[in-house]
């Protein structure tokens, strides 16, 4: 309140007939100041706000919120009440809006938020891992039992020259000797885009109580199992594992996380425990969203490894080294690294 308008407003307050009008006139200046700040923030003009205004915002918000609760009990001026309700609502949106900048959020995310979220869904990860292993075994056993399953499990585009009855030389050719192939960077970008959509799918399908997520995992892993059987028949099991390990340790890990995140949501919906179901779902959803953001990052890494590292390292031992290194890196990051979570929580 500035000095110039003081005498004027004092006389207005004195002359106001009703106690509720005096109440309003005494506080009007605060309300209007808050409204001006909120309007500017809504327009996205944060930079043009002065520091005092920004500092005053939380205090003003509480003042106006308490004005509203007093006015509700003492005033019958419908216009003032409606004005205050809208103002409190707008200020609430601003005060409790998404406040963290993308950069701060990312720092908290990488510095502990992500790995904590992964650890928090460990039960689901265990289940998803078991399902994936089972899927591989099922794929292998089915194809070993009847070769025709191979075509059902491994789609035509994906199989290419990797079909039952192919010579070991032909199969070997699919594993080695790509190092001079052009267009690998494009291939990597495509792989990433495709894998990211698949894992988002695995996550989102968790909404149907997690069952479709598990089915998707089984289906993908079964085709892997079928291919393992094929290469093992040609005596190339170790080479195939190496070829896969370069990016596969990262990619399969990411798919495991996505499936686990989907399962986590499905489990919260099916068994919410003591919490209301909507609350359980949203808690699980937020945790899973963190995991999923990380999955997209992991898939970028996997695509880079697949598009470049696998072509450049053309021998099995080197591939195992890269794949093993990535696997231990992820495991250490997720399960050993505690990060600065304490600081992030406190902030």
């Amino acid at each position: 309140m500035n000095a110039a308008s003081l005498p004027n407003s004092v006389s207005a307050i004195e002359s106001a007939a009703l106690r509720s009008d005096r109440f309003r006139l005494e506080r009007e200046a605060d309300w209007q100041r808050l409204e001006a700040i909120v309007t500017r923030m809504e327009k996205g003009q944060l930079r043009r706000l002065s520091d005092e205004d920004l500092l005053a915002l939380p205090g003003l918000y509480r003042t106006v919120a308490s004005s509203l609760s007093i006015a509700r009990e003492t005033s019958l001026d419908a216009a003032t009440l409606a004005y205050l309700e809208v103002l409190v609502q707008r200020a609430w949106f601003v005060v409790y809006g998404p406040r963290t900048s993308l950069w701060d959020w990312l720092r908290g995310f990488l510095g502990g938020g992500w790995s904590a979220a992964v650890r928090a869904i460990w039960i689901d990860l265990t289940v998803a891992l078991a399902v994936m292993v089972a899927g591989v075994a099922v794929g292998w056993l089915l194809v070993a039992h009847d070769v025709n399953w191979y075509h059902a499990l491994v789609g035509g585009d994906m199989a290419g020259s990797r079909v039952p009855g192919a010579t070991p030389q032909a199969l070997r050719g699919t594993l080695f000797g790509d190092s001079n192939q052009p267009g690998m960077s494009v291939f990597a970008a495509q792989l990433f885009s495709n894998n990211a959509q698949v894992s988002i799918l695995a996550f989102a399908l968790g909404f149907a109580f997690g069952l479709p997520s598990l089915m998707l995992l089984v289906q993908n892993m079964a085709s892997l199992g079928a291919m393992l059987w094929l290469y093992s028949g040609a005596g190339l099991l170790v080479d195939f594992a190496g070829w896969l390990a370069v990016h596969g340790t990262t990619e399969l890990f990411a798919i495991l996380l996505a499936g686990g995140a989907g399962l986590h949501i499905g489990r919260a919906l099916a068994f919410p425990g003591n919490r209301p179901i909507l609350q359980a779902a949203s808690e699980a959803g937020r945790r899973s969203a963190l995991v999923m953001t990380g999955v997209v990052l992991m898939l970028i890494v996997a695509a880079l490894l697949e598009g470049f590292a696998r072509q450049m390292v053309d021998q099995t031992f080197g591939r195992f080294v890269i794949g093993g290194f990535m696997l231990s890196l992820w495991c250490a990051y997720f399960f050993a690294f505690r990060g600065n979570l304490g600081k992030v929580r406190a902030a």
Partner: protein
Amino acid sequence: MRRSPRSRDRVLTTPEGISVPVTVGSRGSRLGALLLDLTFISLLIGLSTMALILMAGGVAAFEHQIGQKNALGHALQFLVIVWIVIMFLFRNAYFLFFELGPRGATPGKRISGIRIAARDGGRLTAEMVIARNLLRDVELFLPIIFIVQAGADSGMGWLAAAGWFAIFLLFPLFNRDALRAGDVIAGTWVVERPRRKLEAALSVSRERTPEPGAGHHAEAPARRGYRFEEAELAVYGEYELQALERVLRDDRAQSLESVYQTIAHKIGRTDGWNDERAFLEDYYTQLRARLEAGMRMGRRKADKFSGTP
């Protein structure tokens, strides 16, 4: 599914314990917002694709050169990567980017006058926005993938897609708050953005009528005014008071006239003839003073039918 507009009003409790009324966004405005956003996205995709093709020097030359292992081939490969990344971002980051902003709304939502908010009254966090938008992809685009994969003439494909639509796209129709699956997962909801038209409400008409001069403070209450007896004020309650407030604010001679007639008839006064506005203003002020005094003592009178406080 038609309901009265009132049924979309909710009360939300902020962390300070203040209850704030909000209005859940209507399903129609949400559909409109979605269609607008999809239009914007496809426009952006179309424009950026065209720009990239232009940079590559046309499609025909592009297909010829892409496989070449020279500088041009590498440049074209780079353009393809840029294209793939842009497509991915448009599909997934468009909603994220805008909903994380201070307005909590994509351009389509902003035009439709709605925004997202946390359902529990707390802070809207980045995780919530991410979760609700990850699911959007599946809700919207999966049926299309079903049909493409199964072939357009496959009955099963259409059946699966129809089932999907029935579950997810119609999901908001089957719950009170019009939540879609992504909102359930994220703990968010879509509410109407508060309108700003009430800004002018502070200039209350009542204030300008007395307009006490500099030296007339003492005389101000003694101006020619209407005094109403306790019995004359006791006939009306808060509901009538607010109706009267609306009439005074609208300030239309015709409705002032008829409201004056009603009140004057009810309390048996005739002295406000040709001075309806002043009469009604005084009646309003004194009625409000009486009702507010009752309120302070914990006695409220909702309308003319409820008992005298």
